[in-house]
């Protein structure tokens, strides 16, 4: 008895140590992941004279908030544009995705099995191959060069991924619940509203975050479809790079500002997003 218990505790001890050894690769990976962020951060605080490729690893001589102020001044209207574009785009496409996912998963109609793959294929098209007809089409419907036009584009190209996410999620809702609701006389909207919406929060979080980040980070659609007053921050940031002397410090400060909203969303909501991802709701 005593021998087994002592061998057990010593093996537990070994496992304990080994587990902590596993932190070493984790910390190494952490460094790899954080290096770009470190360079962005320290460069953003440097003065113009301090910025050079050979001293990029050095810490700044002081904390210069001037760069952030300068970058913010330049990016301000465009940060606003991004925000008023991204929020409706994320909300509308989540709602559409939820309805589509519900119908295709649990309220099927003849041919609905064909609709799903046809919608999903849209997720995989290279956007470069639709950009020209897209530009012509947007002009013809009078939405070229405007924020609502950009919202529409993000909503439509978001349909596949949002539909798929909700489809996958709603497939886990037991069929029996739907049957029971029907027996109680609930119609389509009643079933959707009373049974599916209340359990949808995790899927909504995943889809909202996904759409928020992809619309926020988009450059291709934005640069082609908007004009200088409606440019979102990605386009403005690219313009800040300029073409003569590149003020690396201001550029890095601007980059960080432009990344801040998505970073905040990930910091505050990341674990819900991850939980949703891990639940397989975004498996592809």
């Amino acid at each position, binding site marked *: 008895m005593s021998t087994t218990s002592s061998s057990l505790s010593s093996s537990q001890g070994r496992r304990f140590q080994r587990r902590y050894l596993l932190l070493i690769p984790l910390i190494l990976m952490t460094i790899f992941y954080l290096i770009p962020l470190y360079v962005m951060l320290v460069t953003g605080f440097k003065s113009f004279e301090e910025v050079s*490729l050979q001293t990029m690893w050095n810490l700044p001589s002081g904390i210069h908030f001037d760069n952030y102020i300068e970058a913010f001044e330049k990016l301000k209207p465009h940060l606003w544009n991004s925000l008023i574009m991204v929020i409706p785009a994320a909300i509308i496409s989540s709602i559409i995705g939820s309805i589509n996912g519900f119908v295709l998963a649990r309220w099927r109609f003849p041919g609905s099995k064909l609709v799903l793959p046809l919608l999903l294929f849209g997720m995989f098209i290279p956007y470069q191959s639709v950009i020209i007809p897209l530009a012509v089409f947007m002009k013809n419907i009078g939405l070229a060069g405007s924020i609502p036009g950009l919202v529409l584009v993000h909503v439509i190209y978001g349909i596949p991924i949002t539909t798929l996410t909700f489809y996958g999620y709603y497939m886990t809702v037991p069929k029996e619940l739907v049957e029971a609701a029907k027996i109680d006389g609930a119609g389509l909207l009643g079933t959707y509203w009373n049974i599916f919406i209340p359990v949808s929060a995790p899927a909504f979080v995943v889809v909202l975050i996904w759409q928020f980040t992809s619309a926020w980070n988009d450059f291709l659609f934005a640069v082609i479809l908007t004009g200088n007053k409606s440019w979102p921050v990605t386009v403005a940031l690219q313009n800040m790079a300029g073409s003569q002397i590149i003020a690396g410090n201001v550029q890095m400060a601007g*980059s960080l500002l432009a990344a801040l909203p998505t970073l905040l969303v990930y910091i505050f909501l990341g674990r819900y997003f991850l939980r949703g991802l891990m639940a397989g709701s975004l498996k592809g």
Partner: protein
Amino acid sequence: MFARKEKLYGFLLVLPSIIAVGIFVYGFIAWSVRVSLSDWVGLTADYTFAGLRNYIELFSDPRFHVDIRNTVIFTVVFVLGALIIGLFLAILLDQRLPGEGFFRGLFLFPMAISFIVTGVVWRWLMNPATSADRLSGYNLLFDSLGLDFLINQWHLTPTYGMAAIAMTAIWQMSGYTMALYLGGLRAVPEELREAARVDGASEFQMYRRIILPLLWPVTLSAVIILGHISLKVFDLIIAVAGKQLPLDVPSIYMWQTTFDGLFYGRGASIGILLLISVAFLIIPYLYYSLRSEGEE
């Protein structure tokens, strides 16, 4: 039991999406096909039918050959790298180590940032100068850590420079594969692990024999997602390396030939070829995964 009218409602709810995707995806693809079969060069649309000429020319175009080589290198390095690192991180995090939540969030955050933002940093980090007075970025770091043998030309490495670009993509997407794998690992019933331990299997054997085979569907999904990303890769290369022929890929060729050279017909052909290669990857997958889900 399903009333016909109720089914009709369902259809009507999905109809706007069907129409939108019909126009914005399939309509535009059809339009691109039409352009790809035309002679259109210049700023004015010209749909004169040219048959398959644009496609045939591409197959003997040395630049397109470079593109195919680069795409293959990028895809192999990126997909394998993101899978291996993602799986490695997921298994590490599966050990319930302290700070797990922190690490999970950390590995995922590059996904949140676009390459418009991090491109310049990567450009600096992978500075390819190797002469002692001009070392910078990782090469400078290696030098000061005494790891001189690691100093290399990064994306300027002849022929295999794309591998360095793929590394930045791994940085961005391996957290995503980690999340997928972690989800898969957490779904493995604890009894299976216990049973394996009772049978005297080491942790390594347990992962190798029991858990990895269970992760196969996750791997497949990840391969599809990463694979189609690598076929479409564009802004990442532009941000890190600019438009350089040694690092050319079809989407960059398409962009340049369409907008700089105004060869709309050729540009559309490249777009369609890209689409076809994506379709080869996607259609079997969609068929497989939707059929298996329909069975449940």
